[in-house]
């Protein structure tokens, strides 16, 4: 038996059921806290690096490949936030598991953070291998939208049935196009 295609209000009601749950809110709050703390720590770390090693952290922004020294600095700067994020999320996951709290979203966030780390590493390596201006074009037009789409699809599939949601969108387009033809 196939379920009927849900309306947009049905989807909205289902999302409202999920996001009001204490388990979901608690996990999301912890994830946001971890991301915020990671971001602050990464900023602090980079500022410390700039003071301690000013030559190492200086870049010459030009339309060519980065040198190895600059690559090292770019790598550090790109990976500090996601790596700290992975560490904090891992500690949170261990805490949740030890207390037998619901922590599935944390695991998904951890997985996505690992993917994001891989993406940042890949991006920094591209800066080393190819001219910066070319990479920045591809980053803006292809890589960044792709990674965000990947994260968005993963988050959407968490709470709902992505197939049903896509059918709803297609169904609405179908109805509207029929209406226009008349």
């Amino acid at each position, binding site marked *: 038996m196939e379920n009927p295609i849900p309306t947009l209000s049905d989807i909205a009601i289902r999302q409202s059921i999920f996001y009001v749950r204490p388990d979901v809110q608690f996990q999301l709050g912890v994830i946001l806290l971890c991301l*915020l703390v990671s971001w602050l720590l990464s900023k602090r770390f980079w500022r410390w690096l700039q003071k301690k090693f000013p030559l190492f952290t200086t*870049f010459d922004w030009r339309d060519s490949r980065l040198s190895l020294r600059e690559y090292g600095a770019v790598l550090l700067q790109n990976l500090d936030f996601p790596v700290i994020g992975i560490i904090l999320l891992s500690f949170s996951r261990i805490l949740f598991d030890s207390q037998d709290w619901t922590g599935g979203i944390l695991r998904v966030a951890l997985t996505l953070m690992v993917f994001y780390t891989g993406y940042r590493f890949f991006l920094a390596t591209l800066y080393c291998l190819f001219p910066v201006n070319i990479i920045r074009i591809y980053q803006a037009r292809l890589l960044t939208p792709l990674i965000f789409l990947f994260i968005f699809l993963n988050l959407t599939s968490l709470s709902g049935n992505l197939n049903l949601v896509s059918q709803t969108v297609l169904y609405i387009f179908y109805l509207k196009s029929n209406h226009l033809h008349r």
Partner: protein
Amino acid sequence: MYLTYLKTAIFSQSKFKNLGGVRHDPKIKRFFKVPYLEKKQLLTALKSKKWRKLGCSFLLVIISSTLLNACIGARPLHQQEQLKGAILIWHPYKNELFQWINSNFQEFQQLNSGVNIQDEYVPQKEIVPRLIQKSSQGFGASAIIDFARNISELLAAKRIQPIEDTDLDISTYQPSVLRQVRYQGKLYGIPLGSTTRVLCYNNAKLQTSQDPILSQPPTSLDELIKRAQKGYSVGMISSFEDTFWGLGNFGSSLINDQGKIEPQLGGWAEWIKWLKKAIIQPNFTLLRGDRMVLNRAFANGNLAYYICNSSEIADLKKMLKEDLKIAILPGQGSFQAKPLLYTMAIMINRSASPNERDLVLALAKFLSNIEQQLQGTVQTQSFIPINRHVFFDKSLLQFESVLLKQSETAVTLPLDNVEKLLPIFKQAEPLYQAAIAGEIPPEEAVRQLTLIINRQIAQTQEES
């Protein structure tokens, strides 16, 4: 727009000290109507401690309020004067049974206008794994409707909430049914209805004959064989669980009246011998595999007799209409058939909020009250009511009277023993198939099964 400009300015350039070789985009200057600040001034302004502190404080307020709300959200239960909110129910019902459960949901929503029930069909084999997966993240249905025996799997994964005895009036439920949802003294599900195996037969195929023996359904196994010999086809599913009802016909049992595992399997060998004799009869089909094959064959009029599950009755009635009749399973001598009793229950997701829990409890109480149980039995004629105060005129509801009579000899699997019994059933299946196929003698199958059961009991005693 100004924020977009700020983001572009900060995130694209601020990480790098030397900005040589980059020109300011004149389009941005034209687009924004605010005075164009020098980048250095802008960056200096935003890098100031004051802005950073404000930004961090704002984010901390949002995060802590979310966390606080999550903690405060775990309120103890309270009586609600008016029910309000939305719940999502996953169920395995389709066709006629779905019509019945859907009408119940609609009626509940009409009586409680602030309640919205979202229901979703999930195939029965997928309900439990899907709930375990989604609930571990905090998502998933507010509650599921599934067989009570699956509570043990959900309990092992710790994905359902216990139900206090004070949340329900447990005196309204049949004691045998409560045993199927109670684990170590706590309730984990609310029963909605029970089903069992019965003998379905197509009266139209029998009326064509003048043989007086066919005017009544078979009451013994020998009579069933005779009908097959006379050309009236019989269909049965061949598995240990599906033929469990035959154990009682030869004085055997697996569970005693108190629900404890006490194997007396001497008669199982005789039952297997009878099945082997039946297979070689013309028009007797013992099919291993999908029940739907026999269901369709019976619905299309290709079978005269079919050992069916009572949950199939509603759909079969739609196809066969007045030709469909049911009878209790045939016994043998002074012994009666003892089929398993399957109970459907509603189980609450561990991640459900307190309001969802209240709504599900109210819905479950509504579905198990006398009026709804009576309406369900009349409408579907498929399940045995779990409310002990449901009475009806047996002469008017013949299907229900047969189901009630069969339930008197039916065997319930207590939830406390399900985690021991299900592995026994799983290990018994290859022994049964080997005995039916003639690979091992039935007596050897009995001996090995008894060993398996004793080992299981000993293992459980060691663990406890």
